[in-house]
C-alpha cells in the first residue's frame, strides 16, 4: 500500500480546473436567506457590560400632540449583537461615548486549497498540524487595557435610513474612558438607525447625542416608548416609563415628584442606571442592582414616525453604569470594593462580587480541659496563595474569605527529612516562641511525603477536562491551560495515556485516550482547543469519567484534571449529582484534580468541593510560572498521591497548655470521632509534598486569660492530669490510607516541652511562622496585633534559606507590594 503514503501524484497536476457559474452564489444566497431571520433593529434592554455612558439629548415638546420623551435606552448586546441603534432626527448631531475596549483578537487567515489537484484533502483531514500551516496569524496592534490621553482608536459610525440607504461616518481620537464624536445626520431624510462600532474590536457603544437646536423647525415628535431610561432613587435604578411623563403633555422636564412616582423594576441582571434631570439632581453613577417588576421589551417603534429637532428646553441625562458580567471588566471606581485600582494595570480588575468563597470563621482559642483534641484533614491545595498573588499583583485587596492560611503555609517546600522506613511520610514537630506574641508559643507539625522513584511511578491514565466556553478566551485562561497541559505532557512516559474532553454547551471528546509516545500529536490537539459557547460542566465531567473508566489502569494513577475558570454551570439539581459522581469515581480509583485559571466569577468554593470530594487537589494557576510549578517542578506531587485521607489529631497536655489555637484549616476541621472513622474524608498528600500545620499556644505559665474562654458554672478546671507524661506538651496522631487502600494506618508522635526562642528555631519554622503571620493579617485576624507587614517581612527575609525556586523571595516581593496597597492595618 505504498501509494497510500504518496498523495502527490506526478502527472496529475495539470488537470483542468473548472469554475462554477457566477450565478451560483446568488442561488446559495437565496438558500441562506430563507434560513436567516430578518434583521430587526429594535431597542433592547441592557444586560451588563461595563462602561460609563452618558447620554444626553435635548427634549422638545410639541404642544399640540401627545408627546413622549424618546427612548434613551442603550442596547446592550446579548450574544452576538453588537449594534446599537437609535433614531435621529434630521440633521441631528450625535455624539458618541466609548467604553474602554478589550484586547484585540488575532486574525486568522487561511490559505485555502485551490486548484483541482493538490492532494491535500486527505492529509488535511488526518494530519492535525496541517491547520497550523494554513493559518497566518496577523496580530493587530493591541490596545492597552485602559486608554490614556492621546491614544488613538478608530471607530466607524454608520447610519441607515428607512429606505436602508447607508451612510458611513468617520473616525476619531479617543481619550481615556470616553470619546465624543459629532456628526451631522444627512439632511434630507430621517435616519432609522445608527450603528457605532469600534473598527478593531467591534465594541458596541453607548450613544450620547444631542439634538441640534438650530435646525429650525419648531416641532419635535417622539416615538412612543415603553420606557425611557432610568432614574436613580436610593441607589437603585428606577425605570422611567412613559406614563410618568405623559401625564402632562406640555411638560418639558421631569419634576421631582414625577421621579418619586416612577415605578420600580427589578431583575436579576445587575444593571444600573440613573436618570437625572438637570436642576433636580446631577448625574451620578452608582453600582448596584437594578430592581424592576415588569421589564418591558421595547418594540419596534420607529417605522413611521419622525423626529425633528426643536429649540432647547430641557435636558435629561441618563448616565449609567453597566455592571460587569462574568469576566468583563469593571469601570474605574475609586475606593470601591475593588480596592486600590489604579488606572493602568497589567491585569484587568475583575468584579469581586461575583466570586464566591466559603466564608471562614477564624478558629478560636480552646482550652485543653474542655477540648483536648484538635482534629483536621490536611490541605495542600495552592489556590488560596495563588489567588492572593494574583490580587496583590493587580493591586487589589485580597478578599478576606479567599485567604486560607494553611494553603499559604503549604505553598512552600520545607526541608523536613525524607522517610526511610515503610511509612509514607515523616512527622516533624517543633516548637518555639511565637514571634508576634512572645508570651505565646508556636508549635509546628510537618509531614514530609515520600517522593516517587521514576522507576516506581505507576502508569498514568489522565483525562483532561477543559472548559472551552467563551469566558475562557482571555490570555490568562485557555492559552495558559494549553501551556500547562503541554508541560505535563512532556513529563509523561510512553506507557501513560492522555485524553482530552472539552465542554462548552455540549461535551466533546477532543482527543481520545492516546498513549504518550505520541506527544507531538497530543500537543497539536491541545493547540487546537478553541474557546466559544457557554459552559455545561456536568456533561463534561460525566464524559471525562467515562473515558477514564474505559482506560482504567488497575493500581495505576487514574485522574481527571479539570481546567476551568470556575465559571461553569452544573445546574442546581445536578450539584448533588455531580458530587455523588465524583465520590463514586473516587471509590473506583479515579481521582479528580481541579485547576482554576483566570479571575472573575471565580467559584472557589465549587472548585474546592470538587477537589475535596475527588481525592484530588485544587490548584489555582494565575501565571505561567505557577503552571510550571504545578505541572513541571512538582508534577509528581500533583499527580501521584502517596497517602490519602490524611487526618491529624492533636491532644494537648493541660499541664502545660492553657489554650491552643489552630491557625487555618477552618474548613478542614472535624469532630474528634471522625478521626478514627475511615469513612470520613481527610486530605491527600502528593509524592514529595509537605504538609504543615501551626498552633499558637498560651502556656499555663502565663497569667493571660484565654480570649473568648468560657467559664463554667458547674465545673472548675480539673487539675488531675496524668503525670506519667509530665514533660509532654502534646501528642500528634496521624491517620492515613495508602492511595488504593480503604483502611487507615495510625502513626503517633509526641513532643516535649521546650523553651526555644524564636531565633533559635529552625529556618523553616521561622519561615512558616512568617507566612502564617502575613496570612492572618490578610485575614484581619483578631488575634494579630500588628500595624503593618514589617514583622512578617523581616521574619521572611531572615529565613529565605536557599530558596532554589525563588518561591520565598516571590512572597517577600508580594508582601512589599501589599504594603503599598493596604491601608495601615489596625486591629478592629
Amino acid at each position, binding site marked *: 500500500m505504498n501509494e497510500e503514503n504518496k498523495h502527490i501524484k506526478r502527472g496529475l497536476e495539470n488537470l483542468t*480546473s473548472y*469554475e462554477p457559474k457566477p450565478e451560483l452564489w446568488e442561488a446559495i444566497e437565496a438558500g*441562506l436567506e430563507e434560513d436567516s431571520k430578518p434583521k430587526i433593529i429594535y431597542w433592547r434592554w441592557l444586560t451588563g457590560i461595563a462602561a460609563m455612558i452618558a447620554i444626553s439629548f435635548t427634549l422638545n415638546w410639541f404642544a399640540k400632540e401627545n408627546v413622549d420623551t424618546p427612548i434613551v435606552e442603550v442596547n446592550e448586546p446579548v450574544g452576538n449583537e453588537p449594534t446599537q441603534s437609535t433614531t435621529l432626527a434630521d440633521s441631528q448631531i450625535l455624539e458618541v461615548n466609548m467604553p474602554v475596549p478589550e484586547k484585540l483578537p488575532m486574525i486568522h487567515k487561511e490559505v485555502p*486549497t485551490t486548484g483541482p489537484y493538490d492532494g491535500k484533502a486527505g492529509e488535511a483531514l488526518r494530519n492535525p498540524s496541517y491547520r497550523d500551516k494554513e493559518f497566518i496569524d496577523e496580530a493587530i496592534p493591541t490596545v492597552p487595557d485602559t486608554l490614556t490621553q492621546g491614544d488613538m482608536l478608530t471607530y466607524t459610525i454608520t447610519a441607515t435610513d428607512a429606505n436602508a440607504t447607508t451612510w458611513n461616518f468617520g473616525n476619531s481620537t479617543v481619550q481615556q474612558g470616553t470619546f465624543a464624536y459629532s456628526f451631522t445626520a444627512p439632511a434630507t431624510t430621517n435616519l432609522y438607525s445608527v450603528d457605532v462600532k469600534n473598527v478593531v474590536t*467591534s465594541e458596541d457603544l453607548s450613544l450620547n447625542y444631542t439634538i441640534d437646536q438650530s435646525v429650525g423647525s419648531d416641532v419635535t415628535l417622539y416615538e412612543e416608548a415603553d420606557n425611557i431610561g432610568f432614574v436613580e432613587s436610593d441607589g437603585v435604578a428606577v425605570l422611567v416609563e412613559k406614563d410618568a411623563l405623559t401625564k402632562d403633555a406640555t411638560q418639558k422636564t421631569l419634576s421631582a415628584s414625577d421621579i418619586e412616582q416612577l415605578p420600580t423594576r427589578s431583575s436579576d441582571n445587575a444593571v444600573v442606571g440613573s436618570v437625572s434631570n438637570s436642576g433636580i439632581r446631577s448625574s451620578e453613577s452608582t453600582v448596584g442592582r437594578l430592581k424592576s417588576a415588569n421589564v418591558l421589551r421595547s418594540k419596534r417603534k420607529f417605522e413611521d414616525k419622525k423626529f425633528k429637532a426643536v429649540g432647547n428646553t430641557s435636558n435629561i441625562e441618563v448616565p449609567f453604569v453597566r455592571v460587569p458580567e462574568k469576566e468583563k471588566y469593571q469601570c474605574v471606581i475609586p475606593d470601591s470594593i475593588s480596592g486600590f485600582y489604579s488606572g493602568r494595570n497589567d491585569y484587568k480588575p475583575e468584579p469581586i462580587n461575583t466570586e464566591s468563597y466559603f466564608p471562614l470563621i477564624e478558629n478560636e482559642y480552646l482550652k485543653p480541659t474542655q477540648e483536648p483534641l484538635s482534629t483536621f484533614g490536611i490541605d495542600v491545595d495552592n489556590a488560596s496563595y495563588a489567588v492572593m498573588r494574583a490580587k496583590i499583583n493587580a493591586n487589589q485587596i485580597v478578599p478576606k474569605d479567599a485567604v486560607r492560611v494553611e494553603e499559604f503555609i503549604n505553598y512552600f517546600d520545607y526541608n523536613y527529612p525524607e522517610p526511610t522506613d515503610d511509612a509514607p511520610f515523616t512527622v516533624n514537630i517543633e516548637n518555639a516562641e511565637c514571634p508576634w506574641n512572645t508570651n505565646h508559643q508556636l508549635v509546628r507539625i510537618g509531614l514530609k511525603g515520600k517522593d516517587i522513584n521514576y522507576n516506581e511511578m505507576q502508569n498514568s491514565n489522565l483525562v483532561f477536562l477543559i472548559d472551552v466556553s467563551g469566558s475562557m478566551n482571555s490570555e490568562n485562561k485557555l492559552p495558559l491551560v494549553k501551556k500547562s497541559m503541554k508541560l505535563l505532557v512532556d513529563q509523561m512516559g510512553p506507557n501513560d495515556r492522555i485524553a482530552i474532553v472539552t465542554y462548552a454547551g455540549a461535551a466533546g471528546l477532543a482527543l481520545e485516550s492516546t498513549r504518550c509516545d505520541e506527544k507531538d500529536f497530543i500537543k497539536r490537539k491541545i493547540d487546537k482547543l478553541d474557546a466559544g459557547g457557554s459552559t455545561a460542566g456536568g456533561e463534561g465531567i460525566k464524559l471525562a469519567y467515562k473515558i477514564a473508566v474505559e482506560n482504567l489502569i488497575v493500581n495505576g494513577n487514574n485522574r481527571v484534571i479539570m481546567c476551568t475558570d470556575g465559571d461553569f454551570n452544573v445546574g442546581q439539581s445536578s450539584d448533588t449529582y455531580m458530587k455523588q459522581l465524583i465520590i463514586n469515581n473516587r471509590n473506583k480509583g479515579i481521582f479528580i484534580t481541579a485547576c482554576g485559571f483566570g479571575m472573575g466569577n471565580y467559584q472557589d468554593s465549587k472548585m474546592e468541593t470538587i477537589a475535596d470530594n475527588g481525592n484530588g487537589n485544587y490548584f489555582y494557576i494565575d501565571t505561567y510560572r505557577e503552571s510550571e510549578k504545578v505541572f513541571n517542578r512538582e508534577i509528581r506531587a500533583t499527580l501521584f498521591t502517596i497517602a490519602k485521607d490524611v487526618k491529624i489529631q492533636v491532644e494537648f497536655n493541660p499541664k502545660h497548655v492553657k489554650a491552643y489555637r489552630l491557625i487555618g484549616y477552618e474548613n478542614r476541621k472535624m469532630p474528634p470521632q471522625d478521626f478514627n472513622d475511615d469513612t470520613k474524608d481527610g486530605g491527600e498528600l502528593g509524592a514529595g509534598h509537605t504538609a504543615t500545620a501551626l498552633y499558637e499556644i498560651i502556656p499555663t505559665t502565663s497569667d493571660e486569660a484565654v480570649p473568648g474562654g468560657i467559664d463554667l458554672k458547674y465545673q472548675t478546671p480539673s487539675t488531675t492530669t496524668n503525670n506519667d507524661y509530665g514533660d509532654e506538651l502534646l501528642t500528634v496522631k496521624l491517620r492515613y490510607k495508602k492511595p488504593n487502600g480503604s483502611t487507615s494506618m495510625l502513626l503517633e508522635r509526641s513532643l516535649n516541652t521546650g523553651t526555644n526562642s524564636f531565633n533559635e528555631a529552625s529556618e523553616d519554622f521561622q519561615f512558616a511562622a512568617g507566612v502564617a503571620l502575613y496570612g492572618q493579617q490578610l485575614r484581619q485576624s483578631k488575634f494579630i496585633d500588628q500595624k503593618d507587614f514589617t514583622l512578617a517581612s523581616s521574619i521572611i527575609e531572615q529565613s529565605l534559606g536557599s530558596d532554589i525556586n525563588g518561591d520565598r523571595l516571590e512572597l517577600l516581593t508580594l508582601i512589599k507590594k501589599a504594603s503599598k496597597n493596604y491601608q495601615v492595618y489596625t486591629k478592629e
Partner: protein
Amino acid sequence: MMAESVTATMTLAESQTASKTLLQRCIDGERLAQKELYQTYCNAMYTLAFRITGDHDQAHDVLQDAFIEVFRDLKSFRAIGTIGSWIKTIVVRKATKQQKFEQRFESFEAKHDPGIDYQKFTSVALEREITNLPEGYRTVFTLVEIEGYKHTEIAKMLKISESTSRTQLYHAKKTLQKRLKGER
C-alpha cells in the same frame, strides 16, 4: 440621496474585517464574509464536484447544497483539520449521495497496485479518460489519486467498506491503464 456630510473613508465592511475572523463573521451571517469564503473555495470544490458527478448541472446543484449546509453548520465546525477539508467532506458527501458502488469480493487482486505513471500522458488525455471512467471508479479514483484521501477516510465518507474502496480504485486504474495505452 447620499448626504453631503459623508466624511468617512473606511467602509463598514473593511472595518469589520479587521475585527473578527472570517469564520466568525460567516457564522454571524454576514453575507460579504460568506461570499468571500465561498469565492475562496468554490473553484476547487466545483472541480471536485464535477469530477465526481461527471455532469456540470449536477455539480452546480451539489455545490449549492454543500455551501448552504456549510454556512448552516459552521457553528459546529470543530476545527479538526482545516476549514477547507471540512468543506470538502461536505462536498464529497453531497456529490456521492446518489452513487452506488459495486461490492466485489476480489480483494486479493485489489491489493495488487496497478501503478500508472501519469507523467507519460498528456494532461488532455488524462482529463478525458478520467472523465470517461464509470461513475464509481471515477469517484474513488478522484478521491484517492487526486485529492489524496486514504481508503479508511473514503470508506467513512462514502459509507462503503474499505475493501470496496480499494477494489474500485484497482478497477479504476486498470481501466484507465487500458484506455490510456493507446495514447502514448
